[in-house]
């Protein structure tokens, strides 16, 4: 007997919000996110015979969406090879380090991951900080860490000529994200 979660007519209601949130964080456009959800569900319907009951429909649909997101980035390559001021993060580095490269600030204690990640408000702050990153920095970080795209392909998609350029940018992206989290979440009480 079919499980209810495998009934395609329920997918939109059951997983529409999840897929939409997932897409929206990545593309930052409601219209594009909606298109991606639609394409995902269509692709799901068309290849449902290949769905293996070893995974859940949810995981399977998210997997399809991930491919759609990567395709989206492939079609909309960011052809910028020079970083803009916002992406060099020089201002933050100058705020954190002195001329000799030593820390000028103290990092506050963050507590355990468990304590934070079970707090719904943490995720609000986390998403907020992601959305405040310059678009390309967020794209790079998420393509690499969430989608697990290989370094080589990340470089090609984002217009980096060397792996090192990508790594430097990733480091600066993390610097920015960390500082935002510290300010917007961990400094609060």
């Amino acid at each position, binding site marked *: 007997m079919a499980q209810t979660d495998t009934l395609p007519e329920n997918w*939109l209601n059951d997983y*529409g*919000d*999840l*897929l*939409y*949130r*997932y897409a*929206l*964080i990545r593309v930052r456009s*409601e219209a594009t996110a*909606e298109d991606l*959800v*639609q394409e995902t*569900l*269509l692709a799901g*319907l068309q290849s449902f015979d290949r769905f293996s009951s070893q995974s859940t429909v949810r995981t399977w649909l*998210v997997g399809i969406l991930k491919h759609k997101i990567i395709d989206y980035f492939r079609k909309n390559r960011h052809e910028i090879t020079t970083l803009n001021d916002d992406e060099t993060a020089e201002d933050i*580095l100058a705020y*954190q*380090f002195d001329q*000799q*490269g*030593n*820390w000028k600030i*103290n*990092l506050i*204690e*963050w507590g355990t*991951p468990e304590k*934070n*990640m079970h707090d*719904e408000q943490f*995720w*609000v702050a*986390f*998403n907020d900080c992601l959305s405040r990153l310059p678009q390309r920095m967020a794209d790079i*970080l*998420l393509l*690499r*860490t*969430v989608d697990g795209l290989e*370094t080589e392909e990340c470089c090609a998609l984002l217009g980096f000529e060397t*792996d090192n350029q*990508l*790594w*430097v940018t*990733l*480091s600066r992206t*993390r*610097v920015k*994200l*960390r500082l935002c*989290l510290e300010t917007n979440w961990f400094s609060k009480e």
Partner: protein
Amino acid sequence: MYKCKEIIELTSKNMETSLPWYTRMEMQAHFLICKTCLRYAQQLAMMQKALGVMHGHTVSCQLPEAAKHRIAKKLQQVKENAEK
């Protein structure tokens, strides 16, 4: 000897590629004497963990009803065409 500013860049790079053993040793030695860089590394690890699980967590944002209707209509169309 690496400066703190270089250590934090290496910390991120270490998540992307395998660094030579002597670089990793130098980083470990630095962490022993520099609590701030150690804390930075721990915080990056926590961010990495959060990025890995963030999509499983609910944030208040839903597919708008209008969009839901548009998608439902489209799915219905495709279904009908397939049945013809």
